């Protein structure tokens, strides 16, 4: 009996240790989908990026990533009167670095723009409208204490929109006071601010709204987990104050939830982004935009 027990104990220990090594997650099946990221702003040409969604089970080498980019689609934008086929170009500021550009059809406030992507005998489509933009009354940088070198940006505007707002920022350059020159940063694209998407109906019509804005998370740009909600006084801060439709608002809220809560065990993000693309995923959005720049140490706004 004792011998049997000894063997049983041996098997138990072996099994206990072995179990720790040989356990895996059973993943869900991968179904590739076409991803559209496109926008048109008032006074600007449309821009569209196309790619395939990539598998989590594939190793991410350069060849695989390039295979995911769609570079041979026919991308057409129409406002109901004019139609333009966009041309593919390279822009290393974006990921993936291929963008379909327009050069004739500029966005106009109040117009509806239809996007159609023809690729491999399939048609993907979406529609968006550019709402009237709202101008800021003012925007400024403010430090909590005079000795601080960092602070937050504040904006003030009159709530005249009936749509949804988005505040997005980027800091394309930083001033180096020791060398008296500017240095380009990696922050090439505008990122929606933290909780920077909100409905106009949240405030009273024509009310003056003053709010602090926080830099949006840019998780992929810097080393792991680096994030600061504030700006440096030597940052060049560019602001896009946008108006957008409900579809755009839903998309950016779900995007923000995914970015912020991707690793949040309390309120985990397990929902897909809310797409307005028929036949694919992603977003095609029209924006009414007002642009501003702040250089904090000069404390001037244009």
């Amino acid at each position, binding site marked *: 009996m004792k011998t049997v027990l000894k063997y049983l104990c041996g098997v*138990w*220990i072996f099994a*206990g*240790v072995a*179990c*720790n090594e040989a356990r*895996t*997650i*059973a*993943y*869900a099946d991968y*179904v590739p*989908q076409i*991803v559209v*990221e496109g926008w048109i702003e008032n006074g600007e040409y449309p821009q569209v990026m196309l*790619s395939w*969604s*990539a*598998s*989590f089970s594939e*190793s*991410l080498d*350069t060849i695989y*990533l390039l295979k995911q980019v769609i570079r041979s689609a026919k991308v057409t934008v129409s406002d109901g009167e004019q139609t333009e086929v966009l041309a593919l170009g390279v822009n290393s500021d974006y*990921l993936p670095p291929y963008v379909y550009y327009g050069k004739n059809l500029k966005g106009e406030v109040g117009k509806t723009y239809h996007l159609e992507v023809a690729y491999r005998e399939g048609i993907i489509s979406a529609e968006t409208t550019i709402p009237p933009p709202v101008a800021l009354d003012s925007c400024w940088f403010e430090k909590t204490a005079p000795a601080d070198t960092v602070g937050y940006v504040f904006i003030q505007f009159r709530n005249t929109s009936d749509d949804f707002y988005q505040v997005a920022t980027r800091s394309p350059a930083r001033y180096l006071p020791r060398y008296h020159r500017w240095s380009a940063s990696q922050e*090439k694209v505008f990122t*929606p601010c933290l*909780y920077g998407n909100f409905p106009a109906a*949240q405030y009273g019509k024509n009310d003056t*709204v*003053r*709010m*602090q804005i*926080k830099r949006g*998370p840019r*998780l*992929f*740009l*810097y*080393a*792991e*987990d680096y994030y600061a*909600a504030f700006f440096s006084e030597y940052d060049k801060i560019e602001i896009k104050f946008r108006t957008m439709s409900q579809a755009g608002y839903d998309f950016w*809220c779900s*995007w*923000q*939830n995914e970015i*912020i*809560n*991707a690793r*949040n*065990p309390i*309120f*985990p*993000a*397990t*929902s*897909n982004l809310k797409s307005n693309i028929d036949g694919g995923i*992603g*977003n095609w959005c029209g924006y009414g935009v007002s642009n501003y720049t702040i250089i904090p140490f000069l404390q001037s706004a244009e």
Partner: protein
Amino acid sequence: MNEWHKYLNRMRIILLFVCLTPYLYGKNDTIPDIEIREVIISGQSPQTIRGLSQNYIHLGTDAAATLPSLAGSSDMLKLLELTPGVQHSGDGNSYLYVRGSDAGQNLLLYDNAPLYSAGHLLGIFPLFNPEHLSGVELHKSEINAAYGGGLSAVVKANPRQSLPKKLQLKGNVGLIASEASMEIPLGKRFGVYLSGRKTYLNLLIQPLLNSVLRNSQQQSEQGLSYDFHDINLTLIGQLSPQDRLEMNVTGGQDKLKINEQILDLIGRLNWSNGLVSTRWEHQIDRYTLSQQLYFSQYQNQILMQQSSMDMHLLSSIREVGYKGAYRRQIGLVAVETGLQYASNRIQPQIYEIYNTQLPYSQNHPDPLVSHLASLYAEAELPLNPQWDVRAGLRYNLFFQDRTFNNIEPRISFHYQPDNNNRLHLTLNRQHQYLHLLCPTSVGLPLDFWVTASGAMPPQSGNGVSIGYFHSTSKHDWELSAEIFYRMMHHIYEYNQTITSGNSTSYLDNITTGKGKAYGLELIVKKNFGAWNGWISYTLGKSDRTIPALNNGQTFPARFDRRHDLSLVATYKFSEKWNASLVYIYATGNACTLPSSWYFINNTPVKEYAVYNGARMPDYHRTDLSLQYLYAKDNGIVLSIYNLFAVNNPLYVFMNVERNDKTGQPEIRVRHKQLFSIIPSLTWRFKF
């Protein structure tokens, strides 16, 4: 008016049934004399679980104290997971999942009054102080008509009920918490049990919390503290030989504080529960009249401050109720009838986000007030020496913004050819009028209750089970096998995102549908010799079909376990030394993981495929305990939780992140584990 007439007619029928039942069966004294009661064999080893022959589980606190534990104190609810049909919920989860049910679908009773607590932080400390209990019962097949309001099982935590005979103090002192219970006789007819617990070393918990609450290994918490205490009081009064009064008070509070300087984040989580119950029993000859009044409440509150942003979450539930029961033994027929009433005031999750300058977002749902009145009757009727039937009927009348009235028939047939074999067939229907919504799967107190309403009709379920029990002639070995099938309707899945609070109420995050669960439960138990224990196995399947999720396709419930195996073995070396070993294997939780990813705004985002379509790794755990008793009820217990330090992840992150060296995207899968190997040393004492 027509509706009211229907209610009144039904009420009349039920009342008639309730009133006539004792008389109908009372006249039938010609039924052959047979009485089926649980057989407890003296002279055998003390049994940790009992009741298999009667189709329920009784877990005794004294015997359970020898089994391994996480923090030196027996978690009576978690130990129920070692029995068939109760899924292992894994680490960091305080809820009980019985036969494919969801959290909140069990009726949790303390002294027969409902308890709505979510448990203590991350399931580290047991919900109940075991020193204050005589035992815990689990009823999952045959559910007495006296119990209503839970779709799945009934879990009863029973405080000590015998009058204390002499002044005694007992308890245990552990490394991170201690508990004590005092027995105080007050004359010959009254007595008090007073118990309390307190944790005092939250610094030891900090490393455990770090693994859950941190988003980054590079960030460090500047402050993290946790404190909890609870107190239990039981007053017993034998007013006369026929009258007995019992009063129970229990309450506890948890506080968690997180201070994260890098993210400029301060978080405070406070949650508390309380219950007061008074029960009077009057017994003469063959009848018992029982009257009970109770008050139960639970609330949680979360405050988070990040820079100029404040977030506030608050929810609570309060219930005041009455339970009246009349039990009578009429010849061979045991009859019980009763009337129950419960009034609830629930504050569903209040959600507020404030910016420094202006209110950013708030969602103040109105408190929900509801009333539930129930009438029931149940009779246990022997048909012949081998056959008996237990039949019950419960009628519920529920008021909120609309009225629901439901009838719950329950019936069990038993065939017992001799004392060693028993076969049963059980059918029941149940309704649940309070729904638990769980925004998170991690053991943090964010869950909240809402009442049934026009927008959220009551949950309902129909269950059937067939079981067989066999024991050897001396009851040295016991075997129980049971198959079950349950259909559930109007069950709810809650999917709240932190950023969705700016535009939605909790109702917008709720999806509803149906579910089913079925399986086979087996247990073999050895009751004699130096070695004793049991092996429990459940083969089960539980799925959900919710039109708004997964394109309406059926998906697995989160605690769908294909296989669930437990082995419990205790070895008595001598009167002073004994050891216990627990092994658990369970299929991994169903979870929603991404299947693909893509860039939006230069940031990788994930596309999720089938809802609950992925599986966590299978759960393995071996626990060991060694007990040395230097005197009766005095000794030292060494317990090792997760002996082989198996990495059982609490959750899994899959992300595409930047490789700092190459600048290229890279897939990273992180397993977040809550508990690795955890030894604990406890001093048990009794004076």
